[in-house]
């Protein structure tokens, strides 16, 4: 009897000890050296893992900065210039300045401005409404008004006002998640210094747009003709502002017949 117990206990102990010894040796022999700069950079990053830098999370970006030569230290939009500078210090390189970008909803068609084409009682998300004949509104290029972007925003910078998504620029952390969430692709990231922007995406002819929405760009070309810097062109029935040429005079916003060009105040 004693022998059986002794033998059982010994064999289990020996097996356990062998496993433990094996793991000990393996963890010592095959330890992977982790660059301590990675941990430092990760601590400096905001840690919200939004993925706006193009790498899988903050850890992925920190890893790429150290191990992939040529990765720029200014790719973190939520962290902005401050984080870029910190990363530059850790890596021993000088950071290039990064201008803050802000999400802009390129649509002005709220419930009052936009004609309705039907009553939509389906699943109340933009994604579902888009599948069902582009939702209630007559315009297929505008804000669907169910707030998919609002749910995507990690900082509650977007709210719905009369069926139209609006961004509060001071709360925007430039992560770009709303841009990906919008099924109509009407949200874009714009530099905070821009003075005016065309807030319409409809590429239909002017007469058609006019019937559907009070704020649509009807491609009348007035802004293109009157712009003193020649920065506005009309392509596909839609005015496009070249922000590199724009001198921020604000003239286009004042003369736009349908008010689809608006002055922007995105700076904090």
């Amino acid at each position: 009897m004693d022998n059986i117990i002794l033998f059982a206990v010994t064999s289990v102990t020996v097996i356990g000890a062998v496993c433990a010894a094996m793991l000990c040796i393996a963890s010592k022999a095959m330890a992977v050296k982790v660059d301590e700069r990675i941990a430092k950079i990760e601590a400096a990053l905001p840690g919200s893992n939004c993925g706006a830098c193009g790498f899988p999370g903050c850890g992925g970006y920190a890893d790429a900065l150290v191990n992939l030569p040529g990765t720029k230290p200014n790719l973190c939009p939520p962290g902005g210039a401050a984080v870029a500078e910190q990363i530059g210090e850790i890596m021993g390189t000088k950071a290039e300045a990064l201008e803050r970008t802000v999400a802009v909803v390129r649509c002005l068609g709220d419930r009052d401005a936009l004609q309705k084409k039907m009553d939509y009682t389906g699943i109340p998300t933009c994604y579902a409404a888009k599948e069902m004949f582009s939702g209630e509104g007559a315009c297929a290029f505008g804000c669907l008004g169910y707030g998919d972007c609002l749910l995507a925003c990690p900082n509650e910078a977007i709210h719905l006002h009369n069926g139209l998504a609006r961004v509060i620029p001071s709360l925007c952390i430039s992560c770009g998640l709303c841009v990906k969430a919008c099924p109509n692709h009407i949200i874009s990231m714009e530099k905070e210094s821009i003075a005016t922007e065309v807030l319409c995406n409809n590429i239909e002819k002017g007469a058609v747009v006019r019937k559907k929405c009070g704020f649509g760009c009807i491609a009348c070309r007035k802004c293109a003709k009157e712009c003193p810097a020649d920065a506005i062109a009309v392509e596909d029935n839609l005015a496009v502002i070249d922000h590199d040429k724009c001198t921020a005079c604000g003239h286009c916003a004042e003369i736009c017949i349908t008010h689809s060009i608006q002055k922007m105040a995105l700076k904090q």
Partner: protein
Amino acid sequence: MDFSSLIIIMMSAVLVNNFVLIQFLGICPFLGVSKKLDSAIGMGLAVLFVMMIASAATWPIYALLLAPNGLGYLQTIVFIVIIAALVQLVEITMKRFMPALYKNLGIFLPLMTTNCAVFAATLLNVSAQYNYAEAMTNAFGAGAGFLLAMVIFAGIREHTENADPPACIKGLPLALFSVAILAMAFMGFGGVVENLFG
């Protein structure tokens, strides 16, 4: 031992006795990691891999050490120790020599140290008195069955995410409903092996 008996063991482990859907083993990772197809495939492959190496290691220990000495009753505790140590070892090795693979599969490995599906596969090899080739086939089939169930269920779940169910069954209840229907569908495979290959 001939080739057809291996095929029967394999088919029975993948379909008829599917570890997740018929024997209800490994439900925790099955429900936890099946929200996205990518991670479901990763987890399924990791389970397949660990089942293979666990069977490869535990079968000789049982056949050469425990059974001849009348210590068969110690199989539970010994197998748990060996599987846990083995998974850790694989994780360390993979991190050192295959960092790319570690990034894809490595994060699932710690979840598997005490996975009951892996443990059940090794116990089943012993209790069914399989020889080494049969045991490895059974382990591969069990892992492939897990992978199959994961992939099917992750596909279903990605679609039900976009549905609009009543609030009371949204989330996990809906997942359990769909997995119940899937399990019933898999019961249709009962008898397939006996009638096709038997």
